[in-house]
């Protein structure tokens, strides 16, 4: 059991390297195998401190419970292992479960709409007949450069009756829309999210389109394929990885929706403090001071994001094989 013997080290562990070239001085020196770790150290230290450790603490916290005695806990407070009781409490909270359901509904509608939209935009910009593709690419991408909070403030002025010109326009055709009502505000948020992220996702797809070798287009041209045919039989199949990627990102992003709902809350009475799962965890932690239940909620959100992303990947893999 000599973990430090040089022979045991060679070829094992993550720093495994091909055997030292002959002519080099004997065994690999310790320095050579230490080097990658040294180079990785700054990254690893930060990664562990700001990523791995907080996750660990959150999971631990989700299994802890604080009990108090007295009117304000002045007669004694103790912290003890709670098993799954925080999870039970989180799942018994109708508002939290409803927020997850709400995001599922949101995702089922908004993600396909956005992916469809960005794919169409990307295909049009990359088609041979596109005019000023550089300009339009930048224009579509621009909303992504607007921070979510600012975007929501901008849109909220378009949603508020009495301030927004949209209502005057709608009145001309005899409509009285209600963008902030209990049943509509979710779609108003979806609109902001779509506006913000379609350009970004489009750019990922454009990048993949640009990677399609020119010979394929030439071959299609020789065979007399129409633009439609090229899009359906060459471009769409070849940008599949980019579509899968953007969809997974969008699913995760949907579950993490926070800023838009939080900001729109100030003008929309229909948005409650647990409107989205992240808003719910935030409220539980920092408005209700229940860090343990909030940790349980956070873990549940992460699990839900994992499950949904993997289910989608499994689904697309099965279809392709």
């Amino acid at each position: 059991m000599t973990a430090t013997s040089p022979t045991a080290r060679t070829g094992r562990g993550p720093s495994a390297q091909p055997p030292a070239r002959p002519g080099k001085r004997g065994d690999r020196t310790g320095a050579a195998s230490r080097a990658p770790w040294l180079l990785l150290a700054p990254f690893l230290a930060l990664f562990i401190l700001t990523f791995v450790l907080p996750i660990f603490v959150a999971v631990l916290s989700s299994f802890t419970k604080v009990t108090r005695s007295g009117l304000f806990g002045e007669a004694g407070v103790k912290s003890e292992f709670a098993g799954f009781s925080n999870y039970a409490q989180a799942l018994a909270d109708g508002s939290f479960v409803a927020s997850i359901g709400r995001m599922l509904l949101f995702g089922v509608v908004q993600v396909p709409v956005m992916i469809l939209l960005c794919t169409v935009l990307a295909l049009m910009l990359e088609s041979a007949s596109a005019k000023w593709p550089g300009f339009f690419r930048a224009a579509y991408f621009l909303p992504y450069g607007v921070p979510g909070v600012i975007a929501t403030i901008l849109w909220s002025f378009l949603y508020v009756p009495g301030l927004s010109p949209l209502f005057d326009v709608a009145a001309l055709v005899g409509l009285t829309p209600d963008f902030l009502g209990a049943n509509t505000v979710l779609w108003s948020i979806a609109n902001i999210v779509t506006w913000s992220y379609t350009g970004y996702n489009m750019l990922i797809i454009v990048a993949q389109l640009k990677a399609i070798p020119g010979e394929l287009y030439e071959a299609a041209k020789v065979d007399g394929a129409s633009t439609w045919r090229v899009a359906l039989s060459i471009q769409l199949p070849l940008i599949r990885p980019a579509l899968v990627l953007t969809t997974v990102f969008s699913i995760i992003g949907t579950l993490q929706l926070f800023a838009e709902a939080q900001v729109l809350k100030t003008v929309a009475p229909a948005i409650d403090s647990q409107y989205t799962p992240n808003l719910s965890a935030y409220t539980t932690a920092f408005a209700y001071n229940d860090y343990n239940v909030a940790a349980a909620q956070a873990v549940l959100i992460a699990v839900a994001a994992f499950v949904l992303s993997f289910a989608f990947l499994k689904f697309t893999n099965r279809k392709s094989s």
Partner: protein
Amino acid sequence: MSRFTRRQLLSAGLGTAAMGLLSGCATPGIRSVNTAPVLAPAASGEKITLTYWCWLKDAQKVADIWNASHPQVQVEVVWIPGGNAGGYQKLYSALAAGGGPDLAQVEMRSLPEFMLVNGLVDVARYGAQDYAHLYDQTLWGQVSFSGGVYGIPQDSGPMAMFYQPAVLDQVGGTNPGTWDEWAALARELRKKDVYLDCFPLGDASVFTAFAAQAGASWLRPEEDGWVINMTDDATMKVARFFDQAIDEDLVQTAFGAYSPGWFAAAAKGTIASVVSGSWGDALIEGVSGGSGKWRVAPMPTWDGSGFGSSYLGGSTAAILANSKHPREALEFAVWMTTSREGIDAEITNSGIGWSPSPDFIGTPRQAPSEFFGGQSYHQEIFVPAARQQNEDWSWWPVTQQSFNILSDGFRKKASGTSLVDSVAAAEQQIMTVFRNKGLSIRKEAS
């Protein structure tokens, strides 16, 4: 063969380090500062700096007046977002991390929540009772719990009715004396497509203030735990009243007071009035073209029962648990809220709410107001309103969550759940929240 790889060694090492870090990461706020020995005042000749986190505008200018005459105790103000809009979140995380300022602005209703995380110093241990006579007794009652004092009242919001006489005049109406008259007036105004007021479904604090005015006292601390009664006659009367008002479409529920939609409607005259705290004056002055069009009247009453007014909002300067100089912080808080120069500076610089000192409402508030048509409404309306308060009202440790539970219920009004049912359901949920926190609570025997 060795089974120890570098990776395993590394992870073992990191694991040990992580355990060390984790041991410092117990759930925050489970140690009380009020059982520790009292901290001594700063030695004479020692210069100390106190930090004060608050959301008042230009509060540093107020502190500068104190700083000029107290070279040994300098106060530095840090602005935070208001209350639950982000300020408390900042304070809670600072407390959880073992830090935070010496003083912080904490609303009356939030004091018990900060007590629950052991975030506040009991300033009675530093002689706060000596100053009790300087303060409004209702407010002093709201900062006192089980023999301790957990904050110094800084401002409050006695309620009154801000209204536009010209709009009421469209139906020949004047300011209503009772809520029944209020409803009759609202009914008339609806014929002109005007709403008398909003009912905020998303903010339960207004409903709570109405219930307190009617004589409710939802929770009170007793020896053996908390006693709750949210289904008393007073609360049910208020709930039934607004159930009917919403059913008859007498109140605007699409937006709340002081929201962008409200300002637009108030300027257009499609919202006639608002029953609100005294601090509403500064906001109403933001209604475009509103100068001279608004007046202030006493709050409508519940026809013989209850109180003349109620408190909506109100905050304290609380001394936070990790302060090294609670004694000096207390002195500053008392100076700021009771001295004439402190109160005047808070009004002119920060536009603070109603003065907690019954002896002095502030020099700027003694003059008639041009915006409110030359009315001296502070003297006329708010001085009496501050005296007609429900002294039995007491806040409880999960106020914010209770408000959220209530407003989540109120939002269901649109789909047919009555306010009466929501309040009764909320009472049950609030009891569950208490129990989940390990606090004992029982329903008042009727």
